[in-house]
């Protein structure tokens, strides 16, 4: 078919303003066999946006392993689901809300939580935990303080009011996130496995019912305008940020779960990015059907909204369900009881088309496959830059290179990236639901009792979320693999075996070759680690174009992992428990100052990261998990930011008891100096403590995985020796520094 491109310049300029390239517009005209009208163009522009179509990442994501024996639902559904036995499924996903949060941090973060919750209960699962992964710029700038304060308040305001605990997360401060903060929220839910509901629409003649809030002009074009282009002038985009209403959501959760429990629904889908456009298209696409929709029936928040506005509004707290006509009255009765608005707005057809009506007047008519499957996918053009870190300014030096070891430890414990996150997590309800077996800071992973309604077990879920953009910038492949290994280590430290993984890939503009290279290598590293550790990826999210005028963010893949442990009462802890216990280091850990927190404090970015063997790490994690489960160790904590010295200090602070260690065996094995043994970082190190006999027994099994006896628990000070290095600090002083550093910096 030939199309008269010259005559349609107005169409092309409108399409460009909506983020479509001329080639994409030509393709739309070809697929429709005519020019799109305003409604159709708006719908296509959103469905074909990076945010909805993953057009720069879809091919790459195929490299991730998604299969597993216990996987019930993988990528493509609203969230991933895994069989956890006793008739239960665990459902989870992480998603970004970066751009909205950079524009309006309180509502951006709040609706980020609201959105990820809807992904979970869209499967019929009760949300039981939220975790957040946050990145901000330099803690000393007014902008960072404002964003931190408002993002944390927004997460709390939404999460605390809906009865779902926020049980963990991470917060990192680095200058590349100054303009473009990252707000990634993860939600974990539980459902009876047989009740899981999918989003595929089915059954021509069935009714499409819109549940929840009224539709307004908030969030119009969020997916295309905010999430699919670089952020320049934030203030002008404020009207596109959505406003959250947690009370509406809390009723919506209870209402939807009752509808699913009563088996009144054919399918259920949340309204997220691109609102009705994407939810109807995706439901129809998955079911291989069509949908007719009457926008004049949609309850509106304000008068005079155009059909295209109703189709693309991102008003929050809305869900869409497919109902058989004979069940409609029962559905409406449940909704009335929960005071949730429910309106039939359309029906399932066998046309394979999304047809939009405004009353009787046709307003749009598009083939569903064109919307969902025909968006052009782009190949990346990855090119390794000569200098990987050229795009990033070296961090501000805060510590002299000749600082004493005592001063280094103090600086690290008080560093905004190592210090206790107490200031943050005390603003979140971590307890509601009565499942929280390990609260923030008690263990490396959050531990939640595995229980839902009448199903009560002795088992538990463990959840962790992790990422380290600075290290990924040093080496995207190794850095991303490290993030997976770190999550798995966190789970092992509480005795949990990984069940599955969700990820959020936060990167800059993928059309730039070096960003394409970062993205490609990071996905390859993540895939390798998932294969080596046998963890399927069951869902996730990609957030691209995280750049400001001053440059891109650190490439930041964030990994969320869910695991299970057989006995909740034996979940591991961080704190040293008994004076006299032996302290040992398990695993192939090779400390290096490259990319470390100490290097950052000294104002240095390095080059590359130490390669590591994933098989060796797995072997060590298997041993740690078993040792925690059998009670052979009384504490377990993986070595991360700030190196072994900070790890020991954290174990001592949590346990309220000191320790005396000599790191000479580690320095000798790794061939490093005392300072590197104390403060060097890298994957594959777990510090454990326990009775001497059981640890010596453990050492016989750990000949290959690596076992170094380093000292013992006791006293009121932390005393560390390493070749030509020695440091000491009282547990009390270390605790004061660690616990209150963030609050003190912010006051």
């Amino acid at each position, binding site marked *: 078919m030939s199309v008269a491109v010259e005559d349609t310049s107005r169409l092309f300029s409108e399409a460009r303003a909506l983020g479509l390239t001329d080639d994409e517009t030509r393709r739309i005209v070809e697929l429709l066999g005519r020019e799109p009208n305003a409604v159709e163009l708006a719908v296509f522009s959103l469905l074909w946006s990076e945010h909805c179509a993953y057009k720069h990442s879809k091919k790459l994501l195929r490299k991730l392993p998604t299969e597993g024996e216990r996987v019930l639902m993988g990528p493509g559904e609203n969230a991933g689901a895994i069989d956890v036995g006793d008739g239960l499924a665990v459902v989870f996903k992480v998603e970004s809300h970066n751009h909205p949060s950079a524009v309006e941090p309180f509502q951006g973060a709040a609706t980020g939580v609201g959105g990820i919750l809807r992904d979970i209960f869209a499967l019929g699962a009760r949300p039981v935990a939220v975790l957040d992964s946050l990145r901000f710029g330099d803690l000393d700038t007014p902008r960072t303080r404002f964003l931190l304060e408002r993002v944390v308040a927004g997460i*709390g305001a939404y999460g*605390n*009011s*809906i009865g779902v605990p926020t049980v963990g997360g991470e917060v990192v401060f680095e200058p590349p996130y100054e303009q473009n903060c990252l707000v990634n929220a993860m939600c974990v839910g539980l459902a009876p496995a047989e009740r899981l509901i999918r989003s595929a629409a089915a059954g021509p003649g069935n009714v499409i019912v819109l549940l929840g809030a009224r539709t307004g002009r908030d969030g119009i074009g969020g997916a295309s305008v905010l999430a699919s282009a670089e952020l320049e002038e934030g203030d002008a985009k404020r009207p596109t940020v959505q406003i959250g209403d947690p*009370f509406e959501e809390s009723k919506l959760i209870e209402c939807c779960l009752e509808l699913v429990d009563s088996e009144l629904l054919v399918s259920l889908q949340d309204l997220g990015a691109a609102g009705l456009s994407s939810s109807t298209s995706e439901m129809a696409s998955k079911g291989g059907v069509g949908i007719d929709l009457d926008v004049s029936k949609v309850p509106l928040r304000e008068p005079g909204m155009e059909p295209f506005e109703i189709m693309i509004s991102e008003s929050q707290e809305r869900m869409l369900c497919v109902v058989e006509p004979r069940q409609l009255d029962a559905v409406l009765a449940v909704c009335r009881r929960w005071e949730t608005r429910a309106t039939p707005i359309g029906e399932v057809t066998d046309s394979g088309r999304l047809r939009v009506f405004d009353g009787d007047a046709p307003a749009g008519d598009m083939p569903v496959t064109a919307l969902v499957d025909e968006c052009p996918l782009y190949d990346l053009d990855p090119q390794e830059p000569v200098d990987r870190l050229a795009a990033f300014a070296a961090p501000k030096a805060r510590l002299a290179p000749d600082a004493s070891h005592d001063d280094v430890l103090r600086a690290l414990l008080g560093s905004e990236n190592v210090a206790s996150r107490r200031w943050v*997590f*005390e603003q979140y309800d971590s307890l509601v639901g*009565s499942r929280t077996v390990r609260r923030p800071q008690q263990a490396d992973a959050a531990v939640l009792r595995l229980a839902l309604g009448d199903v009560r077990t002795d088992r538990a879920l463990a959840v962790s979320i992790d990422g380290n953009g600075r290290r990924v910038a040093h080496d995207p492949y190794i850095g991303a693999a490290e993030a997976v290994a770190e999550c798995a280590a966190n789970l092992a430290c509480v005795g949990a075996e990984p069940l599955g993984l969700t990820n959020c890939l936060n990167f800059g503009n993928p059309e730039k070759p070096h960003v394409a290279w970062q993205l490609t290598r990071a996905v390859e590293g993540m895939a390798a680690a998932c294969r080596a550790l046998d963890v399927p990826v069951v869902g996730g999210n990609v957030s691209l174009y995280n750049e400001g005028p001053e440059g891109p963010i650190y490439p930041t893949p964030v990994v969320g992992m869910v695991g299970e442990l057989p006995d909740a009462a034996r979940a591991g802890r961080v704190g040293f428990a008994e004076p006299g216990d032996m302290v040992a280091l398990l695993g192939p850990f090779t400390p290096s100052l490259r990319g470390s927190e100490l290097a950052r404090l000294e104002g240095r970015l390095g080059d590359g990261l130490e390669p590591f063997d994933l098989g060796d790490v797995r072997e060590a994690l298997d041993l740690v998990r078993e040792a925690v489960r059998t009670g052979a160790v009384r504490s377990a904590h993986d070595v991360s930011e700030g190196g072994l010295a900070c790890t020991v200090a954290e174990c001592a602070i949590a346990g309220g008891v000191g320790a005396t260690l000599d790191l000479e065996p580690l320095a000798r094995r790794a061939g490093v100096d005392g300072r590197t043994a104390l403060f060097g970082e890298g994957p594959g190190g777990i510090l454990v403590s326990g009775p001497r006999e059981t640890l010596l027994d453990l050492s016989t099994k750990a000949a290959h995985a690596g076992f170094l006896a380093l000292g013992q628990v006791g006293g009121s000070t932390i005393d560390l020796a390493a070749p030509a290095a020695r440091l000491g600090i009282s547990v009390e002083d270390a605790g004061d520094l660690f616990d209150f550093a963030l609050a003190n910096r912010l006051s």
Partner: protein
Amino acid sequence: MSARVGIVLFPGSCDEHDALLAVERAGLEPEYLWHADPDLKGVDAVIVPGGFSYGDYLRVGAIARFAPVMEEVSRFAVEGGPVLGICNGFQVLCEAHLLPGALLPNNSLRFVCRQVDVVVEHDRTVFTRASEPGEVLSLPVKHTTGCWFAPAEQLDQLEANGQLVLRYAAGHNPNGSTRDVAGVSNEAGNVLGLMPHPEHATDALTGSTDGLRLFTALSPVAA
């Protein structure tokens, strides 16, 4: 026969399932009471649980007090029935004038979730009668609006009546409440409201078990 304990369910309640588990652990029989039904189903005691009833919109607890079920709760309380208000429930009972004083935003103006020590000052209420005065309970708090306040002249009277039943231990007050008050009762001692969450302290696996005694104290009410 074990006491039957009603747990009020408002739109926006969050900790109702936790209250249900606590009641069960105390060997009592829980029963939900729907906000729209003016019917206490003949229960022996009522818990108004934590959460964000009606989104905490307008003012915390201000809308919930007008729910149909609350008329019955008020009648039950006036007739001497045991009523426990936890966190948002405490706020609702103050708004309903079943308890003295009011709850203001925390002095930090932030939500706070923390384990604190709470001292039982009096054993004169139906919920603290199994406790010794001076006993210290480890309970979590989690709230934004927990700073209990009453005017000075009223305070001395409440103090003299023994109505300031629970106080935060020295250094543990998370919200700046007047005289470190964590919980107050009505004059008769059958209605108690507190900001800390005893229902989240009834299971060693998820925290302390110190809160359990406030619930077990209800066992004799059915007898």
